[in-house]
């Protein structure tokens, strides 16, 4: 009932001072929009960047076999480390730190042919795990090859979406025979189009992958230039890299501290860095929004100081009939809180509309879509609560500390 009274008082004040209260609310609303939109756009940007980065693959570590740079056991530096596909598979099975693995022997400039369509492609021989690691998701109706395809050395191919459109136009490629380097292969899957912002040796859209066993049978168990692995557990690549170094340095007799022998591209680490980077960006954007909101809070505090001043006599009277300091404090703070709450509500609703509008309109792919996440609303509401508290407390304290005698004579 006490609160009901205070709320009524607030609406009476609001009616009496429409413009002033509206401006104070507007300041809060504006700040809220700033916080929400900046965080939402930042979040969308993060998600879009991550998605684009993961276009190449997720939890992916690519290792190139290189030349030794240190002398070891009487051998000169500059010796090329060579592995064949079978060696890679053997290592993958031997090390528990490796979750998924694949060799990646590759031939580029091979012709792929269907009917009278012909296109140059690069062909790699890989494991089924490669499809998972590299986010090669098949279009509905198709599939990536599996262990049985590998074991039976089936002549099956998974083709990139660009290869598909060049060879088949709009036709359905699944089950069709294409010629790779003049040898027939059955198409079992096509790559679902994906955003890929990084690669090595070409985008996946223009590639054809086949089981590594089939590849070996066709083109020989050649030396591979690079291998692709995913750590187990997926988020920590360090133990795996260490294990691989130990394993390979023993097997191929090079100095385990020779960092030049293997060249490693660790996207797990890069992911972590990116996460940190975007966390920082979000913090910065959020801070910018929060400062705008604080400026709105100063407006509310000003209005409250004015209201307290105008109502000095009334506060004196309330004290005379027995209001304790906290009654007065609460009254002023509640009023500031209501201005902030209503302004914040308005700001949130407007932000919803804006986000909805942006989502409906085309945005550049790299920027992504703004996301209104629970975290964003939680942060916004916390900042609002903080601003409401701070903008209320100072005028409220001034009111609560009034001397009743002087206030009555005001």
């Amino acid at each position, binding site marked *: 009932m006490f609160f*009901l009274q205070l709320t009524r008082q607030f609406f009476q004040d609001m009616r009496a001072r429409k413009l002033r209260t509206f401006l104070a609310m507007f300041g809060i609303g504006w700040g809220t929009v700033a916080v929400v939109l900046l965080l939402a756009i930042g979040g969308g940007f993060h998600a879009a960047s991550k998605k684009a980065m993961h276009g190449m693959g997720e939890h992916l570590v690519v290792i190139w076999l290189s030349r030794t740079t240190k002398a070891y056991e009487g051998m000169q530096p500059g010796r090329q480390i060579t592995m064949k596909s079978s060696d890679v598979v053997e290592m993958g099975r031997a090390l528990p730190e490796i979750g998924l693995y694949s060799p990646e022997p590759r031939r580029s400039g091979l012709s792929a042919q269907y009917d009278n369509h012909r296109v140059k492609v690069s062909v790699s021989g890989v494991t089924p795990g490669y499809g998972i690691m590299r986010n090669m998701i098949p279009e509905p109706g198709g599939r990536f090859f599996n262990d049985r395809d590998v074991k039976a050395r089936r002549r099956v191919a998974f083709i990139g979406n660009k290869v598909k459109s060049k060879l088949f136009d709009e036709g359905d490629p699944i089950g069709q025979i294409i010629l790779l380097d003049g040898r027939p292969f059955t198409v079992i899957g096509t790559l679902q189009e994906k955003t890929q912002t990084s690669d090595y040796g070409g985008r996946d859209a223009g590639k054809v992958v086949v089981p590594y066993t089939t590849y070996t049978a066709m083109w020989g168990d050649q030396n591979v230039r690079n291998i692709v692995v995913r750590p187990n557990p997926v988020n920590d690549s360090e133990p795996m890299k260490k294990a691989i170094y130990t394993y390979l340095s023993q097997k191929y007799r090079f100095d385990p501290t020779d960092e030049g022998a293997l060249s490693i591209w660790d996207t797990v680490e890069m992911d972590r860095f990116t996460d940190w980077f975007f966390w920082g960006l979000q913090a910065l954007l959020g801070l910018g929004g929060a400062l705008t909101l604080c400026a709105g809070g100063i407006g509310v505090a000003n209005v409250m100081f004015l209201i307290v001043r105008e109502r000095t006599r*009334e506060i004196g009277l*309330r004290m*005379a*009939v*027995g209001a*304790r300091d906290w009654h007065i404090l609460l009254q002023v703070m509640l009023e500031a809180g209501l201005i902030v709450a209503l302004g914040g509500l308005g700001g949130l609703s407007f932000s919803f509309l804006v986000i909805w509008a942006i989502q409906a309109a085309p945005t550049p792919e790299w920027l992504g879509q703004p996301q209104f996440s629970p975290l964003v609303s939680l942060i916004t509401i916390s900042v609002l609560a903080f601003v409401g508290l701070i903008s209320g407390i100072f005028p409220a304290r001034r009111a609560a500390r009034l001397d*009743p*005698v002087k206030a*009555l004579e005001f």
Partner: protein
Amino acid sequence: MIEIRDIKKSYQMGEVTVEALRGIDLNIGSGEYVAILGPSGSGKSTLMQILGCLDTPTAGTYQLSGREVSGLKRNELAEIRNKQVGFIFQSFNLLAHASALENVALPLIYRGTSGRQRLQEAARLLERVGLADRMDHKPNELSGGQRQRVAVARALAGDPDLILADEPTGNLDTHSGDEIVALFEELVSEGKSVIVVTHDLEIAQRAHRVVRIRDGVVEEDTRQAA
């Protein structure tokens, strides 16, 4: 009911110390009807503020209903004002945006009385001062005499033993002033102590006792036949 001993109050006005009260002794019993009379600047308002626990004395002791109140904290004083004292001001001091009923119920809010009870009590008090048909009127819809009667009803909310009125008829015409004074007499007959601060001799003479203040001291304290 009230026992004050050697009460002093001084204010610092820049370099100058103004002594509003220079040592006042006063005993007021339950059910007494006292007028405090004096010219402006005599210290009578300051005395009333101290009696009403709105202000604290610089020196001296004040016992209200047996409790020493001169050294109490702000919130303790507020509680006494809330429960033991009812104030009536010259300028009514009603909340402009609230109805007569809500104005009368105001002190009860700070007692934590429930909403229903507050309004019931306020309605009863408004009836008692003869404003049963004006409960939902805002102060600007009431005459001066009606406003002051609302203020009397507010002072009675929560049934305090001590009613303090500071120039209660100062802004009223004679007829309305008479009505207010008549209400005071009723209250006294019910056993409440009423202290009226005034510079109006006619009002003062209707009290049972007149205390004359001049230059911060009691000049004369006379009882008169009712």
